[in-house]
């Protein structure tokens, strides 16, 4: 196993996430795709830590920070989507792309 395999895995996972975020219609699908992108970044950080700086754990610490930020993001995102669904009864992106009520 070389570093290249891990970077390639992270790239493909990230691209799948980008594709989902570009093409899904429902807001929850887009949030799931964003989670996939966060995970791809985490794989890259852990792999670079292991192969380029194996004596330290800085990459893993960064990955932990990203996990925390992702958790906060998904909680706030789902709360917003739930609020919009309660008020407007809509979850598809083309119905809620205007920022005014």
């Amino acid at each position: 196993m070389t570093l290249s395999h891990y970077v390639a895995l992270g790239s493909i996972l990230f691209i799948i996430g980008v594709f989902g975020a570009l093409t899904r219609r429902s807001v929850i699908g887009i949030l799931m795709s964003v989670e996939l992108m966060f995970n791809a970044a985490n794989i890259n950080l852990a792999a670079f830590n292991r192969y380029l700086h194996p004596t330290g754990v800085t990459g893993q610490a960064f990955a932990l920070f990203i996990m925390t930020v992702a958790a906060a993001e998904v909680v706030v995102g789902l709360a917003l989507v739930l609020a919009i669904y309660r008020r407007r009864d809509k979850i598809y992106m083309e119905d809620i792309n205007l920022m005014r009520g």
Partner: protein
Amino acid sequence: MIEVAVFCSMAAVALVSAVLVVTLRNTVHCALFLGLSLAGVAGVFGTLAADFLFVSQILIYVGGIAVLMIFAVMLMGRTSDLTLRQVNQEWLAGLLVCAITAAGLLRQAKGFLGKAADAPARALAAQAATKPLGRLMLGDFAVPFELISLVLMAALLGAIFFTRKEDEPKSTENGKPGRGGGT
């Protein structure tokens, strides 16, 4: 040898489930496959000897975020969603953009092809990462650590603020009762 087998199987699980997450029509199945994909990523962390990340991934992502997604899908799902298309009209353009970007990224990844972990690094990485991580978090990274706790606090308050029930007078003022007003 076993490392290669574990990496390939875990990467296959993560990638196939990720493709299913972005293509399936039933959103509940999407959320379930998201959990599987995140578990595959946890296995990849295992092959990288990142034990603390492995456990955190299982705890936070598979046990927390995937379950939260399933709850959200169940709260907001309708039966008509199963017959509607879940992908917008521009999926071909999106596929093109993603293919070009993927070609560029994989070209970059080829540059690391000769970079294998050497033996001393392998021995060092076999140690548990929990203790150095704890030292780092409360040493060099103390300020970001505290800032992250602030961010989590703000997220918690924001989630409560956005999902609270609407006030009763406000909803009757508009002429129609609020949908989540509990009346």
